[in-house]
Every structure is written in structure tokens, then in C-alpha cells.
């Protein structure tokens, strides 16, 4: 798959069919990849596809100028489709290099399971449903479902629906999707008072780095409401109440656009379980509107149109 990707990307750049390629290359830390955004055909030799391609590359699309080839797992393809629906990118400006994805390894889960941090591990390898972790020369085996990201366990689209070139064999979704991560299930058990207290604790840690917003392909506003000063919707001080308002409004803004890629939760430096909010919203959108974002590029975006029969009495 990697070889094919490099060939295709190189050819596209050399034949001037694209101006940019966005993919992944090896990162500077163990078990890490990093986005590779380049115009240079020689750089395509560095492109990789492996179990650690965590980022959702679609978040870069709205800032690119020209024609772009983008490496897309299923989740990226959904974000791309959602951006097309919202007229944020044009389909004809994209070459989508589809990657059928078996799920991405969540290093934080492995850290918890083996009691070591990622840089203390010798090796992580995956063979089908088995993931082997080598620590201090000893090998420990896990089933993939124990070490993949929560959002990967809930993945409805491992193989992109929308692509120009598919780089591997199509993969079907797992027959047993686990939509809830640990946190969501636990939160649902709580009373609303307990849940409120739980979010107070979680959001007290927020430092307002806005990484959750900035990695999010669905957060494409040129000016975010948190940056508005007249009126000021939310104070920039990282008080838990303001942090809560920020998260709630962000969540509402991405309703019908969030594809449950899980990036907001992954990048949070202070471990706030943000997917508990976004996944809940995703499920609510599905329940109320029978709408799954990023599945159909010809569908109208959920929040910018309405059907007669949806109207409440007030509007009828």
C-alpha cells in the first residue's frame, strides 16, 4: 500500500495534476507519524501508511490553495465529504488517495495496559487482530480491540466511500461496533448532578489551548466565536464555566459535521474526555434527523436546510 501511495503521489506531482500532496511521514518520536505537506515530488519517498497514522488530515484542506491530493482513511474521507457538502472545498480540486483502515493504535491505551510510557516500549507490531508490544525484551500480546482508539471501534466506514484511487483491499466495518468509549458508558450511569460535577472537574483542567478546535476539520470558521469581543460570548480566562460554554457551543456548531474522528480527545494535552460530548451529539443527530455526516457528498448539510415536516408548530 505504501509503495503504491508513493508511486501515485509522485506521478500526480510530476504530471502537475496536483499542486500539493498531504500525507503522513515517520515522526520524530517512537510510534509516531507526522503530516507531510509538500509540493516536492522527491518528498513522496517519505510517505508512510502504518498503524500510527493518527491525524485527521482533512483539517488542512481549508487552508490549502490549488489542487491537492490527500491520503484519506475512512474518517478523513467523511470529513472531506462534509467539507464538500459545506462548500468549503471543491471535489474537483481534490485527488483522494483512499486507505482502507483497520483502525489506529491508541498509544495511551497501550501505556495503561503495560504500565509504561510510549518511549519506554521497544516495539509495537500488528498482525491482523493481534497487537504485540515488546517491553524490556518481553513480548505481550493484545487483541486489536483492546488497543485501538475508541472511535476506531465505532468506525462505520473503514474504507472511504469517496476516493479517486483506492490503495488497498476494501475493508468492511466490524460487525460489532462499540459506539461508546469507556467514558460515555460511565457518564450515562451518573445522575445529572453527578454528571455536572464530573464535567466541572474535567473542564477545570482546560487551559484553552484550542487544540481540540484547531485539529477539527469541522471547525472551519474563519473567526471562532471565542475570539469575538463585541459581544464577548465567552471570557478567555480558563475558568471551568467558560471552558464549559466553549465546549458546548463548539459541540453545537459541529453538530451534523462531526464525523466522530476522535481527534479532539486525542490531542487534548490535559486529557479531557471530549469525545464523550461529541459522540453523544453524533448519536443525537442520527436519532433526531437520521443523518450521518460525511457519508453522502450530494446530501444537503444538516444544519443549513430544513424539511417542511421538521418544522415545529412555532414555525409552521
Amino acid at each position, binding site marked *: 500500500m505504501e509503495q503504491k501511495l508513493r508511486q501515485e503521489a509522485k506521478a500526480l506531482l510530476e504530471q502537475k495534476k496536483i499542486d500539493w500532496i498531504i500525507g503522513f511521514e515517520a*515522526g*520524530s*518520536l*517512537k510510534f*509516531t*507519524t*507526522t*503530516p*507531510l*505537506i*509538500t509540493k516536492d515530488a522527491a518528498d513522496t519517498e517519505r510517505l508512510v501508511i502504518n498503524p500510527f497514522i493518527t*491525524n485527521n488530515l482533512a*483539517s*488542512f484542506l481549508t*487552508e490549502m490553495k490549488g489542487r491537492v491530493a490527500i491520503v484519506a482513511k475512512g474518517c478523513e474521507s467523511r470529513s472531506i465529504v462534509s467539507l464538500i457538502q459545506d462548500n468549503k472545498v471543491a471535489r474537483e480540486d481534490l485527488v483522494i488517495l483512499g486507505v482502507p483502515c483497520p483502525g489506529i493504535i491508541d498509544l495511551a491505551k497501550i501505556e495503561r495496559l503495560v504500565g509504561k*510510557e510510549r*518511549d*519506554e516500549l521497544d516495539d509495537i507490531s500488528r498482525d491482523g487482530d493481534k497487537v504485540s508490544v515488546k517491553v524490556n525484551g518481553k513480548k505481550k500480546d493484545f487483541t486489536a480491540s483492546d488497543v485501538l482508539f475508541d472511535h476506531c471501534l465505532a468506525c462505520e466506514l473503514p474504507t472511504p466511500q469517496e476516493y479517486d484511487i483506492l490503495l488497498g483491499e476494501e475493508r468492511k466495518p466490524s460487525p460489532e461496533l462499540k459506539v461508546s468509549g469507556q467514558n460515555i458508558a460511565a457518564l450515562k450511569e451518573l445522575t445529572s448532578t453527578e454528571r455536572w460535577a464530573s464535567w466541572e*472537574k*474535567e473542564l*477545570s*483542567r482546560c*487551559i*484553552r*489551548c*484550542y*487544540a481540540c*478546535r*484547531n*485539529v477539527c476539520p469541522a471547525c472551519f470558521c474563519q473567526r471562532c466565536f471565542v*475570539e469575538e469581543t463585541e459581544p464577548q460570548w465567552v*471570557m*478567555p*480566562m*480558563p*475558568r471551568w464555566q467558560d471552558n464549559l460554554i466553549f465546549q458546548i457551543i463548539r459541540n453545537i456548531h459541529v453538530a451534523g459535521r462531526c464525523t466522530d474522528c476522535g*481527534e479532539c480527545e*486525542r*490531542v487534548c*494535552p*490535559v*486529557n*479531557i474526555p471530549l469525545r464523550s460530548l461529541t459522540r453523544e451529539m453524533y448519536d443525537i443527530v442520527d436519532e433526531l434527523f437520521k443523518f450521518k455526516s460525511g457519508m453522502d457528498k450530494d446530501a444537503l448539510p444538516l444544519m443549513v436546510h430544513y424539511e417542511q415536516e421538521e418544522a415545529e408548530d412555532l414555525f409552521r
Partner: protein
Amino acid sequence: MSKKVNKKDIAQLLKEWSQQFNVLAPSRASGVAEMTEWDGKDTSFLEWYRNTVVPPKASFLPPMEEMFRFRKDEEGYRIEPPSKNGQKQLLFGVRPCDARAMAIVDMTFEDAYKDPYYLEKRRNAVLVGMGCTNPCESCFCTSMGTTPTDSTNVDLMLIDIGDYFLIEEVTAKGKELLAKASGLKEATKSDEAEAEKSKETSYNKVTRKLDTTGIKDRLLESFDDEEFWTKTAAKCISCGICTLLCPTCYCFDINDEMVKGEGARFRNWDSCGFPLYTKMPMENPRSEKWRRVRQKVCHKYEFYPMAFDVIACTGCGRCIRLCPVNWDITQVIESVPQKVKGAK
């Protein structure tokens, strides 16, 4: 001869110090590793602690801080000055990279304008350092003027020698702390030798190296190299992780909040990575991402050396570990072009 303390007696030591100080120690109780008010018993950090995610600067320049309160009446605004905090903090387990970072931040806050909020807390504080035995893959302190066991910027330094910590008395403050402490033992010659060995082992575990020779000049010459900076900034997502959680970044924003005629002025962490940081009524000199990335790099490796003769980076590695896209400052610094003098 130095003193030593059994690791089992750390809780006792912290209890004694708690009588005089607000003791802060590494904790994950909040959900993230940070220096937190010690709970009176937990020393589990001795097992897991490599470094905190939130740097100890948060104890002197908190993420948000009330500067003063104000009230509006018929005659105008009345300002209530902040109550003197007077709190004496003892930070236990500070890593040498972060201690050096505090010394670097001091340079700004005690420069032309003396920042009372920061300096009061800082001058009242005691730093008890703890040498690293297990540096991270992202650490590069040995390239940045310090080492995993450097005692330069702390009051007391603990060096791991197995069941004990050897304690180095660095400052008079530190000496005083130790003089009153019970449960300490005299270190032997072999303890001292063990400490030296431990330091060397730790030093050799820092494998990431960064050559900063001539970096100030290279950055100066590359300032207008838009192509280089655009490429360097391409994958940056303009979040605030690498700045807000950098132990030497100190930028803050000031905000007033008033409800029904009463309010307060706050300051809170801010980041040059945000477009809003330089937004002015008519223009924004750093609206493009590459200009913001350039600012961040140059502030640490060019402007700070120009102003204070020291690079404002201590190699703690947080920006590398925590970056959502693995933007790596060591790779960036290494890739700054060496321009030929006089060439265009």
C-alpha cells in the same frame, strides 16, 4: 558531608515542611500530571513521575489570576488592591529543566518592569529539585545548558541513589530547610560516589541532541526567508499547546469583567500562536501562520539571546511530546538555513 533521606521518609519530610509552606508535589489527581497542593500522604509520584504536563511556572504565573477588584459608584471607579497573598510555596520534585526555565522567566519579570504578582510568589518560594533517572525520548536538556541532575537553579537538589535520595544543599534557603528537618542521615563516601554515578547514567540517557551553534545569527539572516518559514509552519495547527505548556513562555492577556457595577481585572495565559494575539483594530501583523511560527522560534532562539544572552528553551521536550502534529523544535532549529554572508 551531604545528607540523605530514605524514600520511605519523604512523606514525613513533606509533612514537616507543610507546617511552614504550602507544599506542592507532582500529582495526577486532577486528571493530568501537574504540581498540586500536597494531600498530606501521597508519594506515589516517586514511582511514576518523569515530568509534569503542566510546567511549574503555573505556580507563579497561574493560567488565570485576579489582579485587582473594582467597584463603580457615583464618584467613579474604586479599585481594591489585591490582598497580599503572602503564601509561601514549596515546590517538591522540580526537574532541572523547569528550574532553569524559572530562572529564565525571572529575567523578564524582574527586568525594566518588576512584575509584583509574579515576583512575590517567586521570591517567597522554595524549589526542591529532583534529578531525573528516566528522561523522555523528547528531552534534550543536555544541549540547552543544563543536565538531568543540575542543581543550579534550585534550593535543594535530590539525587536518586536507590533507596535514598542524596540531598545537595544549594542555597542558604535550602540549608535552612534541611537544618530543621528530622529523619535525615549523613551520607557516606559511597553514597556520594553512587550519586556521581547516578548523574552520569542519567546524563547519558538524554539521547536527543541539538546543536545551537550560531543559531541567533542564522535566525537573524533567515528572518525574511518566507519559503523556509512557510514550509516549517505547514503542518502547525496554530493551537496553544507548545506555548502555553512551555516552561519559559510567559505571555498573558488582560481581561476586565464587570457585572452590576462590580468586577475584577484578570490576567490569563496567552499564546503568540493565536492569530488574535496580535490583532489590532486596523491590521494584524501576524495573521499568517508562518509569521506566528517564526515569532515563536525566534523569540526563544534569537530575541531572548539578544536581550538576556540565554536561549529561552531548556530542552524539557514538552512541545515535542504534546504536539498534535509532532512539530519538533529540534528538527526546525537544525533546518534553519546557513546563509552565505552577502548573498541574497
